């Protein structure tokens, strides 16, 4: 795809680039774990200096990040389009809600694991269907999932709370921290620890043999099959992994908000996840971070803008949706590589600059 050809061009024009020496010698898993630890340290430090409101926002970025990262694995690395990833968040959120309400003795991490497992099962079903569909067919089927699934809550109002959804409180904070650490701060820690762990797994997978298999299937199914890759199994596995990420995101959202309601999982959610992925840059896990940040801050800015300009509620309610839509169109038409593409170009230019300087010396 386009990203690859630019990378190739950069490599050709830049002469023979030195292999990234800093990365040599350290196994990816160790490097990713260290990176995650560093990131967690930064975030924990950050939670102490910012106000509670920003702590909630920080946690929001976290759960969007893992949802978008899952979508990146599916679409960016494996070439399958999903317009229904909000449905997996829905499953994750409702699993956590039901467990907290009906099995209160379970610890929260077990709730989260079960939420991930439930989405994984749903992802297996969706993936098995998806493996036979491609392009527009898959897009249509996943869109139907996003439109249809939230309505199931109306079907079982006693269990799922109808259109009001379920409300609950998660008591996950250890007693020792109860007096000292405020809730939003603790929530941000829980969310980011989960997200970073999941990201380590994802980052490792995408760099492994499995990652190459994913990309081989994306780039050319026939050649991949000739090379002995089981296409269907690979596609299903990609779907399951990304559904698990979606489920985790939904579970974390439920944890953060203390509610699970069908109104939070409209098709717009699925489409904004897609918008975030496209904006961040489809082919890269870093893109997921930019996308998640954009998702949260577009919302925040449009709220600020509404207050500042005193826009009417009709405009204010629809502003984020309009922004996501415009972003999708502009990015695809003008910057198909997204933000991460820009970051990459900047880095290439900087390293080229450095090399020419060294040459002059």
């Amino acid at each position, binding site marked *: *795809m*386009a990203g690859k050809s630019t990378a190739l061009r950069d490599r050709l024009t830049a002469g023979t680039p030195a292999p990234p020496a800093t990365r040599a010698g350290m196994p990816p898993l160790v490097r990713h774990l260290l990176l995650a630890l560093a990131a967690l340290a930064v975030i924990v430090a950050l939670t102490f200096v910012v106000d509670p409101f920003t702590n909630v926002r920080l946690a929001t970025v976290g759960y969007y990040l893992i949802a978008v990262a899952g979508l990146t694995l599916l*679409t960016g690395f494996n*070439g399958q*389009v999903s*317009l229904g990833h909000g449905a997996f968040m829905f499953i994750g959120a409702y699993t956590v809600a039901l467990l907290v309400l009906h099995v209160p003795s379970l610890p929260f991490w077990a709730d989260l694991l079960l939420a991930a497992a439930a989405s994984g099962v749903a992802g297996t079903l969706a993936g098995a*269907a998806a493996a*036979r*569909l491609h*392009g*527009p*067919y898959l*897009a*249509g*089927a996943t*869109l*139907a*999932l996003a*439109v*249809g*699934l939230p*309505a*199931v809550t*109306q*079907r079982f109002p006693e269990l799922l709370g109808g259109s009001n959804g379920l409300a609950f409180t998660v008591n996950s904070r250890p007693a020792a921290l109860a007096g000292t650490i405020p809730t939003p701060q603790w929530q941000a820690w829980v969310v980011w620890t989960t997200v970073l762990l999941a990201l380590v797994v994802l980052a490792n997978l995408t760099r492994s043999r499995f990652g190459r298999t994913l990309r081989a299937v994306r780039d050319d199914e026939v050649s991949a099959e000739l090379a002995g890759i089981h296409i269907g199994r690979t596609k299903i596995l990609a779907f399951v992994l990304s559904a698990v990420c979606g489920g985790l995101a939904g579970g974390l959202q439920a944890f953060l908000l203390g509610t699970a309601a069908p109104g939070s999982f*409209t*098709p*717009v959610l699925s*489409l904004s996840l*897609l*918008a975030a992925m*496209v904006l961040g840059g*489809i082919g890269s896990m870093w893109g997921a971070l930019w996308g998640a940040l954009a998702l949260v801050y577009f919302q925040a800015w449009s709220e600020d803008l509404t207050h500042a300009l005193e826009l009417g509620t*009709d*405009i204010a*309610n*629809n*502003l984020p*949706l*309009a922004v*996501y*839509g*415009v*972003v*999708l*169109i502009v990015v*695809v*038409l003008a910057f*198909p590589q997204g933000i991460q593409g820009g970051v990459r170009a900047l880095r290439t230019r900087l390293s080229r600059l450095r090399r020419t300087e060294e040459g002059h010396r």
Partner: protein
Amino acid sequence: MNGFLALTVNGVATGAVYAALGLSLVIIYRATRVINFAQPALALISTYLAYSVNKATGSYWLAFAVALVAGAILGALTERLLIRPLRNRTELSPVIVTLGLLMVLQAVAGMIWTNEPQSFPYAFDFRGMFSSSNLFTVLVVLGTAAGIGLLFRFTALGLRLRAAAFKPEVARMLGVRVGLMLTVGWALAAAVGALAGLLATPPFLFPTVLDGVFVYALTAAVIGGLDNPAGTVLGGFAVGIGLSYVSGYLGPELVTVAALAILVLVLALRPNGLFGHAVARRV
């Protein structure tokens, strides 16, 4: 109202609407291999314009005409401004751009006409088991489908449209203005989409009113083979009747999930749709 006959009749009327919107997807898919995810939004804006015209003038039929013309213009603009620059891009690009347009137009509709439901009139009396409005819907959709079939098969314009869609290089050499034909195809499709919007919307119009209809129309088009207008019309009626039974016997909340199940089942058994194969051979 839950009698078998009532459900069937109701299914025929809603199925006609799915057939119309499905038809608009198929016309575009045949010409450009793009699924226009913005189709419900183009129809939505057209229907809102009809709503405003109807409110201002009191004339349903003037509003009806305005919606069709507005639909055609919106379709042509979409092709020219958004889809044409994406030639030679990946399959994903038009999907994302049309989704972006869907979001923008839904938001714009909400900004101008609010997210609250507005009452939107039926063409004729809608009371009774098979009302005049139902009859009108079925007749208009069948008439439109037949008209499009005749246009494609028996007119010079139809021949050019088909040539531009299937063999653009050859068509260009023979003097067909391929670009213009693509624009005409989009305009035509979006006008049919606007028609579907007018027929699907009553009694209430709100920005997400066509989301479900779109999913069912897509199901109809996929069952029909995405390439086959006649199959899509049949698919539309089949989906309409099938979902009417689901709604009546199992519950209206399960209709979208049922549509998804039908979609997946059909594609798993016949990846090109139920009627997909014959057409590939004919053309």
